[in-house]
């Protein structure tokens, strides 16, 4: 009996879940701290473009602003509208937060030290990583639709419908962009996608030191742009923040939400944005790989490179937010269906043909 416990029950039913829980916690806590500073950076960059100071009171240079905001949200009273559908009203922010955190499980953030070792730091290194990402991020739309409907109010409902249409439309082009990358990799595993970018264009051009040329942003160039723009639309970031359009819809699907419920929505939004930055990094910017094959670069741990690239992509997102005016809804739909969809569909065929006829397919 004791033997049975140690061989069958302990390793599979008790120890593995505990180990996974510890791993997940060790991933989620730094992630949430990262989100706090992503929010801070977003506000600071926006402020700098508009010649304002931004948050600068709480802590040195306002560095603790996000934590103060969090405390404020937690201690406020959540108000549930009397006409709302209470269960779904409470469920919506939970779905958003849960889904946006769960999708990070397959993101490899670094490798063994020194870099380029062939292993990666990831919570769940599954074969169908990309499909997991697509599956879980397609659930994000539910938080928004349910939140908008359960509020039982017109503005949130209109906004939820807009948002759902927008997210479904851009998921199509994101899917095709990912397919072009997958064609060049030959695997659905995110670690394999990063490792596939170790060799490529730079080697053919005869400059193997410049590993930055190996990453997919250059060979698949138009797709890189399409992906970044679609990522903006998918996460409802400006200039595609129509679900929140303050000038017409007050504040979008979360008008009726307050305190910690609102905080979960906001957390989910920034988690999704940061996730899209991480995906851009992995798919097009070589994940944790150093940009040049120089000894000093190779000594820097992979996770540092990953974070640098993530922040670079996020800086782009923040600058776009600061100086691009908001799209109109019909323009947004036109861009998604009439420009990005044909372009990405064409690129799938083109990339597949090139790989096939030049015998480059992995």
């Amino acid at each position, binding site marked *: 009996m004791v033997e049975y416990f140690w061989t069958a029950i302990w390793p599979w039913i008790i120890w593995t879940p505990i180990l996974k829980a510890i791993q997940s916690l060790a991933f989620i806590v730094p992630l949430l701290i990262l989100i706090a500073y992503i929010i801070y950076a977003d506000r600071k960059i926006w402020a700098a473009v508009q010649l304002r100071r931004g948050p600068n009171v709480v802590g040195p240079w306002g560095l603790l602003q996000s934590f103060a905001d969090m405390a404020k949200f937690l201690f406020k009273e959540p108000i549930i509208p009397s006409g709302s559908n209470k269960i779904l009203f409470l469920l919506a922010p939970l779905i958003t937060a849960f889904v946006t955190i769960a999708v990070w499980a397959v993101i490899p953030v670094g490798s063994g030290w020194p870099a380029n070792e062939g292993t990666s730091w990831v919570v769940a290194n599954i074969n169908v990583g990309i499909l997991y990402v697509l599956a879980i991020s397609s659930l994000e739309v539910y938080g928004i639709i349910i939140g908008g409907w359960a509020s039982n109010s017109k503005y949130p409902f209109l906004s939820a419908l807009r948002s*759902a249409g927008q997210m479904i439309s851009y998921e199509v082009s994101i899917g095709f962009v990912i397919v072009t990358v997958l064609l060049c990799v030959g695997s659905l595993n995110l670690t394999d996608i990063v490792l596939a970018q170790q060799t490529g264009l730079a080697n053919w051009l005869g400059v193997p030191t410049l590993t930055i040329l190996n990453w997919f942003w250059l060979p698949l160039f138009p797709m890189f742009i399409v992906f970044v723009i679609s990522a903006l639309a998918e996460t409802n970031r400006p200039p595609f923040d129509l679900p929140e359009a303050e000038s017409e819809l007050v504040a979008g699907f979360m008008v009726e939400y307050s305190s910690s419920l609102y905080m979960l929505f906001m957390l989910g939004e920034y988690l999704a944005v940061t996730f899209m930055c991480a995906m851009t990094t992995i798919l097009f910017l070589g994940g944790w790989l150093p940009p040049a094959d120089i000894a000093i670069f190779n000594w820097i741990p992979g996770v540092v490179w990953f974070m640098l690239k993530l922040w670079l992509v996020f800086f782009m997102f923040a600058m776009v937010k600061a100086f691009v005016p908001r799209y109109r809804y019909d323009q947004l739909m036109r861009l998604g269906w009439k420009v990005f969809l044909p372009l990405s569909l064409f690129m799938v065929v083109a990339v597949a043909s090139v790989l096939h006829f030049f015998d480059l397919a992995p």
Partner: protein
Amino acid sequence: MGIADLFFYLFSALTTGSAVMVISARNPVHAVMFLILAFINAAGLFLLLGAEFLAMLLIIVYVGAVAVLFLFVVMMLDVDFAELRAGYMKYFPLGATIGFILLAELVVLFGAWKSDGGISVTPKVPIPDTAAITNTEAIGHVLYTDYIFYFEAVGIILLTAMVGAIVLTFRQNENAKRQNIGDQIARTPETSIEIKKVETGKGI
């Protein structure tokens, strides 16, 4: 009993439970939510079988697209529950009769059904070893190599259905204002701005 068995019973209980709730929930939106729960648990069952590709696809296609459209339609409907239940007692005898006949037929059919001792048909394509090949590749080989023509035919049929649906529902609204992006970009100050000198106190 390993952890997989525990999860099997969890997922199957939740799948059947939420499937029952789909048809018994009063609120149609709740019914769709239970349908989504059933899909997700079915995906969990696929995962336990080792069919990771199908599990993910089930969530992407059914939960991510089909159920969203369901939810859209159900939320937009202005359902009047009193009106829905008004005819309930009136049609109950008819519905019960039809249900009873179907049940009786099934009972008779299964009572008379004899198995000839197991299925002896061998699959045309041998089932690959799951350790040697990921199931994404295995399904890819079957769909795109062995059954490519059937696959293409299905694609064409679905395309026809899609075109048909669009043709049936598409209405050109003559009054709608449309923006031609080409014209918009081709505009220059000369074609779009007119400068007038206005004399003081006269207006245009």
